[in-house]
């Protein structure tokens, strides 16, 4: 195996985070904020920051930096910052408020997050996330976010997969929307105040580096096609996750890796790219025209019971006619203490296992039925249909609209789908990447969730990064300035811009025979098949081969119609797919080298006798941070692996068990 591996990458120097102060973990963040340099109020408007992305992370960061008085430029590819993908989050946001007095605390939230991530996240960052979580709720309530309330007027909570306390704040099934509207309104307020300039329908296509520091971006105005350079003292990427590499996912159509990948190509390390979260409760695929998968909030698992028929010959029967004793409530059977609330990776994999056994339900996709029941019959009997309607009404309506079936009468069908990525650009405690001046926040960075993200914690991370962490750490960076002016017309900047123009020109001139989408679909298929819910060496080697030849074909045979100087959606997609084709290979190499199973990364070679993920702390308790290495043609060569050892001082490394 080691021989095979050396074909794909080389190993470089180890790396470490040097920014977390050497004090006990519960004093660390306070200490870091104190140590961070200050920028005098009258000097702030002279410092400038570019924020790419207007989701929870980027929107919150831009608004807060604007409030502080810095000059901010905010970018998104949609027509309004309010449409960033964070808006789609349904379930809720965690915070260690302990409003329910059920034993929650900062430490417990930290503990659950570490354990949920199978001890593959950095302890110091995760602790800070838990620590600032309570402030997030205060901030959002003050902005007017209409969280669910009890009759007494106080905030309501619910619980989510993988935990045993009620710490999730929610706004029916639209928590992400409500939180994002809060951040968006704060952002619009700063736009009105003149501290933030807004650039909608703008796509970042390249990072500008000068003297080893990130100093700006090249962006394309998606309406006029014009390439623009924007320079600043620091750049923040809050451009979201890259789950769309799988083509079918719960991500928005435009979600992409371009901003991160372009930075990676310029020297930012990409960490743990293979950690992909597969969400257990999505509406199953219906046909090959399908453009995306729709998530059903995991909160449904609080009341819905998951089952499949015990016998394969019952699989095409009306579920209501299958007798109780012929049903297999497999999660309740295998994991009696967590039951239907086991973490996502376990729920997802077990669904695959029963479907692989031939006990899946719904239409056949290939040789198998890919679906399991999520049944509310007993909850409806116990609580009444009205109570269920109150809790989950909009989710049920959505399901009905998409499938044409009534979940109040027939059990829902669900199947896992790609949902979130725990991998992303490597950052230190300050959320600074391996390029000075380039900060990364939200789903685009890697630090907080390890190999598996617990429910309701991505929203928490986005807002923690945006409202509370970045404004303090960027302050330190800016206080070390002033940084010399970057001349937008300097040869170095012009060169970057010309490179973008060339690439665009190249995409438009290939004039091949295949559409961009057909490449994207094929790549997605390869990724799902070989780098999806379960991976093994043989499959990954095959995938790397397939991706390389697909990439070669793309640059020879793609057909991108239209021109560069207008709104051209095919061109936008082509640029994104080109980057996905490079990322996909790195994901497979990362998955290949990590021959342990942990969290969502399940290597079939590494499992216990009863089929659970078998972690290998001896060899793999590290973050894999990859450095880009071009070959002579500038294409991806052999990446360099830098290991960051994970040290656990505040928490004891344990085998994860949900039995």
């Amino acid at each position, binding site marked *: 195996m080691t021989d095979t591996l050396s074909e794909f990458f080389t190993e470089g120097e180890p790396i470490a985070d040097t920014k977390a102060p050497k004090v006990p973990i519960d004093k660390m963040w306070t200490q870091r904020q104190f140590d961070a340099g200050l920028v005098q109020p009258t000097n702030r408007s002279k410092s400038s920051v570019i924020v790419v992305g207007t989701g929870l992370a980027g929107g*919150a960061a831009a*608004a*807060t930096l604007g*409030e502080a008085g810095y000059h901010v430029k905010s970018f998104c590819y*949609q*027509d*309004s*910052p*309010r*449409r960033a*993908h964070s808006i*789609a989050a349904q379930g809720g946001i965690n915070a260690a408020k302990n*409003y329910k007095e059920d034993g929650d605390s900062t430490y417990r939230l930290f503990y659950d997050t570490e354990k949920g991530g199978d001890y593959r996240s950095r302890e110091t960052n995760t602790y800070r996330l838990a620590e600032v979580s309570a*402030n997030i709720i*205060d*901030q*959002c*309530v*003050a*902005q*007017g976010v*209409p969280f*669910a*309330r*009890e009759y*007494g*007027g*106080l905030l309501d909570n619910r619980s989510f997969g993988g935990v045993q306390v009620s710490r999730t704040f929610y*706004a029916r099934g639209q928590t992400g*929307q*409500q939180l994002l509207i809060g951040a*968006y*309104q*704060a952002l*619009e*307020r700063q736009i*009105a105040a003149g501290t933030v300039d*807004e650039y909608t329908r703008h796509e970042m296509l390249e990072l500008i580096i000068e003297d080893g520091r990130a100093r700006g971006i090249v962006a394309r105005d998606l*309406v006029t096609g014009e390439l623009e350079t924007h320079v600043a003292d620091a750049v923040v990427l809050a451009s979201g996750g890259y789950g769309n590499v799988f083509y079918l996912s719960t991500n*928005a*159509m*435009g979600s992409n890796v371009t901003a991160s990948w372009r930075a990676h190509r310029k020297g930012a390390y990409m960490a743990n790219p293979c950690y992909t979260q597969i969400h257990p409760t999505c509406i199953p695929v219906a046909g090959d*025209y*399908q*453009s995306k998968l*729709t998530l059903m909030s995991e909160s449904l698992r609080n009341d819905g019971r998951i089952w499949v028929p015990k016998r394969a010959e019952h699989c095409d029967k009306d579920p209501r006619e299958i007798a109780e004793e012929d049903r297999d409530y497999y999660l309740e059977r295998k994991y009696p203490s967590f039951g239907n609330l086991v973490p996502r990776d376990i729920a997802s994999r077990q669904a695959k296992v029963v479907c692989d056994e031939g006990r899946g339900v719904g239409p056949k996709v290939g040789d198998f039925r890919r679906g399991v029941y999520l049944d509310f019959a007993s909850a409806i009997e116990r609580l009444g249909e009205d109570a269920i309607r109150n809790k989950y009404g909009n989710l049920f309506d*959505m399901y009905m*609209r*998409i499938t*044409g079936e009534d979940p109040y009468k027939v059990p829902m069908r669900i199947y896992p789908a790609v949902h979130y990525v725990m991998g992303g650009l490597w950052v230190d405690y300050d959320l600074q990447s391996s390029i000075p001046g380039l900060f990364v926040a939200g789903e685009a960075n890697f630090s907080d969730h390890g190999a598996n993200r617990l429910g309701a914690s991505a929203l928490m991370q986005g807002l923690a990064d945006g*409202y509370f962490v970045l404004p303090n750490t960027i302050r330190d960076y800016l206080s070390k300035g002033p940084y010399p002016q970057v001349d937008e017309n300097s040869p170095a900047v012009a060169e970057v811009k010309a490179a973008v123009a060339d690439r665009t020109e190249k995409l438009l001139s290939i004039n091949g*025979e295949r*559409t961009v*989408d057909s490449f994207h679909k094929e790549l997605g298929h390869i990724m799902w098949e070989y780098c999806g819910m379960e991976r093994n060496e043989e499959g990954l080697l095959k995938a790397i081969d397939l991706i390389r030849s697909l990439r070669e074909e793309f640059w020879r045979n793609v*057909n991108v*119609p239209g021109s560069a100087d*207008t*709104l051209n*959606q*095919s061109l936008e997609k082509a640029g994104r797919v080109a980057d996905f084709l490079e990322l996909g290979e790195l994901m497979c190499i990362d998955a290949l080298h990590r021959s342990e199973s942990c969290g969502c990364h399940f290597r079939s070679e590494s499992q216990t006798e009863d089929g659970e993920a078998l972690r290998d702390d001896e060899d793999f308790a590290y973050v894999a941070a990859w450095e880009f290495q071009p070959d002579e043609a500038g294409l991806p060569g052999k990446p360099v692996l830098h290991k960051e050892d994970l040290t656990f001082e505040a928490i004891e490394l344990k085998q994860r068990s949900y039995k």
Partner: protein
Amino acid sequence: MNLTLKVWRQEGPATKGDLVTYEMTDVSPDMSFLEMLDVLNERLVTEGEDPIAFDSDCREGICGMCGLMISGEAHGPERTTTCQLHMRTFTDGEVITVEPWRASAFPIIKDLVVDRGSFDRIIESGGYISVNTGAAPDAHATPVPKQNADRAFMAAECIGCGACVAACPNASGMLFLGAKITHLGELPQGQAERSARVVSMVDQHDEEGFGGCTNIGECSHACPKGIPLDVISQLNADLRNAAGSNR
């Protein structure tokens, strides 16, 4: 099923547009309306034609990015977003016209894509609560009665799609505006700026070229989130109060 589509094609803001006919065969009833357009676009690209430009992102009915006039109705015949409209709503052989939102405050960019930046500018003019990060009191310091919280939530569900404007014969943006006024006005946190907010938002609305509201009700009928007409009454009440209080 088989369908005839008449789609508005317009190269740019300055060029003239018109309806172009496309025949669609083998449309699956389980497709969403946008997936049906994706299939058509794949065909157009393969045939060397320019695909139809239209906006969408989440395709889950929540981002508000999609929005088409389908046979004269905003988001089509059902009360939902275009991305959540499924082809099972249509019948075999139907002729469907597809046009962009029409309103002078939403200028056309290309084909079915319009510029809704005016909505952002309305929010910018006062659709927020002025609170800086970091100084918020504990969330439980101010209880909010459940009825108020629920009404605020109902109004906050607006996704900013613009269907209300497209459906309104006056191209008025009052439903969108009323939704924001009601959302923030139901909460204790929103009271301090209540009067100033409504005045500046209405001013901005008029400046952007949206029409006045004459109580026709098409907006609420077309709204995929079911924002009720009474948010406009709320808006008017707040506006009267603001005038009375001289801000």
